[in-house]
């Protein structure tokens, strides 16, 4: 069941804006990640502009839904989304990585409004998300906790410690989303070809299922399936849900897509202009 057409147009427009903000911030900083942030854009936009109960004017609202970006190195995408949502001025995103900036290279909850948990060392964000969900049950609060993991990140053992404990306590107010873009920083050669690198993790959905989770597999760039999956995850009772979101690293920019070189490469002026031109074409009419 596709989502409301007007909502979809709005989300798509925001996704284009977020992608431009990501590229501009990394270009301005002369550092940062590109491929991973671009692959999570629709996920972040769907969460903040459709799913999450948050108040940008009151970032510490105790009853807000929680979001943990466990793949912390992709935080520039979250900063852009939080800026658009009104947690801080959108121009501030361009201070990304600058000295004294609230837009740190990896998420710092003590500095940035709207960041619910520190992360950056891969795997470490998922357990705090479980802690928030368990705390909500203990405190009888009805907020939902979402955690976004990278597919490379789930190579970390801590993720699977979290997965079984969440299953043990039947934590149904927690949803994990895997940004399954199938490429990591250096990656593993595909078919022996060192120039073509992939994430070696396969059967990702099976792994979460084996740990007792409700698993939904969707196209992570298609709001028509992504938003309904998020709604189903939130409504599922008795066990946690994992949404395996199939995505494309560097999504939206033809020369960045599926290229591990763009994991953390900085676009130059020319590349930025080309990318903007491609994004302008994608803007919904």
């Amino acid at each position, binding site marked *: 069941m596709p989502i409301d057409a007007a909502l979809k147009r709005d989300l798509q427009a925001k996704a284009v804006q977020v992608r431009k903000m990501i590229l501009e911030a990394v270009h301005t900083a002369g550092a940062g990640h590109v491929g991973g942030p671009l692959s999570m854009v629709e996920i972040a936009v769907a969460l903040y502009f459709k799913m999450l109960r948050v108040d940008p004017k009151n970032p510490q609202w*105790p009853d807000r839904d*929680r979001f*943990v970006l466990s793949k912390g190195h992709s935080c520039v995408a979250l900063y852009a989304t939080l800026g658009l949502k009104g947690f801080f001025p959108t121009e501030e995103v361009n201070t990304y990585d600058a000295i004294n900036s609230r837009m740190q290279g990896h998420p*710092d*909850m*003590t500095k940035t409004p709207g960041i*619910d*948990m*520190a*992360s*950056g*060392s891969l*795997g*470490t*964000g*998922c*357990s*705090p*998300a*479980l*802690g*928030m*969900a*368990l*705390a*909500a049950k*203990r*405190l009888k*609060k009805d907020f939902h*906790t979402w955690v976004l993991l990278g597919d490379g990140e789930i190579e970390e*053992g*801590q993720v699977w*410690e*979290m997965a*079984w*404990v969440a299953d*043990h*306590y039947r934590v149904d107010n927690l949803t994990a989303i895997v940004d399954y873009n199938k490429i990591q920083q250096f990656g593993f050669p595909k078919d022996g070809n060192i120039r073509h690198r992939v994430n070696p993790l396969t059967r990702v959905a099976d792994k979460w299922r084996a740990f007792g989770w409700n698993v939904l597999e969707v196209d992570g760039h298609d709001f028509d399936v992504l938003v309904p999956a998020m709604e189903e995850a939130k409504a599922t009772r008795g066990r946690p849900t994992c949404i395996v979101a199939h995505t494309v690293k560097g999504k939206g920019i033809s020369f960045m897509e599926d290229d591990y070189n763009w994991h953390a490469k900085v676009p130059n002026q020319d590349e930025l202009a080309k990318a903007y031109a491609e994004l302008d074409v994608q803007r919904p009419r």
Partner: protein
Amino acid sequence: MAKMVEVRAAWGDALLELTKTHPNLVVLDGDLASSTMAQTVAYSAPDFFMNMGIAEQNMMGVAAGMASVGLVPWLSTFACFLTSRALDQLRVTVAQPKLNVKLGAAYSGILTGKTGKTHIDVEDIAIMRAMPNMVVVAPADAVECRLATLALTDMSGPAYLRLTRDSTPVIFGEEYKFELGKLVVLREGKDLTIFGTGVQSVRALEACDLLAQEGISAHLVHVHTLKPLDVEGIVAAAAKTGRVLTTEDHTIIGGLGGAVAEVLSQRRPTPMRIHGLQDCFGESGPNDAMLEKYGLTAKHIAQAAKALLGKAC
């Protein structure tokens, strides 16, 4: 003869006491509650207890998430698993964001019930002292452990409590007032100042008696809070005698000795000796044999004191 009580048991009892006044307290256990004595809470206040399984890295992160929502989690596992196994999680999700997580570090030091080198943690103070935002406390006995547990629960931010396994003499009376961050003078003296921490302070007290028999008057100071350090108190205690010996059930690198040396070298350079484990790991063995082999008995402390004073041992 002093009453003998396990410091870990006092910790478990203190947690149970806290459940009556602190509805937001929760004890997270790494499946060692029968060793750490967090089982006291599991049996008597089960709603305040959650087993997180043999998965310390996840447990540390769960505690961080709970603290971010307003709970006060106390972790129950061995010191080595908190300070080594789950160190990255502790650093990134507890210490850096200054979250209100309390670390119950059981089985610290070399007396760990014949567990051997893996479960003996003699580096924990050094690791935890180096961690920004961390409060580090090593109580000397069961009375002080209870008071420290209450005090750390009521302060905001991450804290590490160093617990020991076996019964040790109770040196503080019911009138004892524990003040976080303030050292305690256990014995007045004039010939040298001995700084101790944790249960080693009790062995240092015994050493003072041995020294007194030889006409040496030792000024004994117990440093329960290793961070933040009572800098003025340390300078004053060193100035009182002009000679300083530190003693600890911990490696001589980065622990109490390091902390005191950092203060005195910059504030009041004083002739000093650091007594403790000689940059080595432990092994398994009975307590008496372990203390003897690793040189942590009262006799060894007294010998170190005499060496500092230039007297023959």
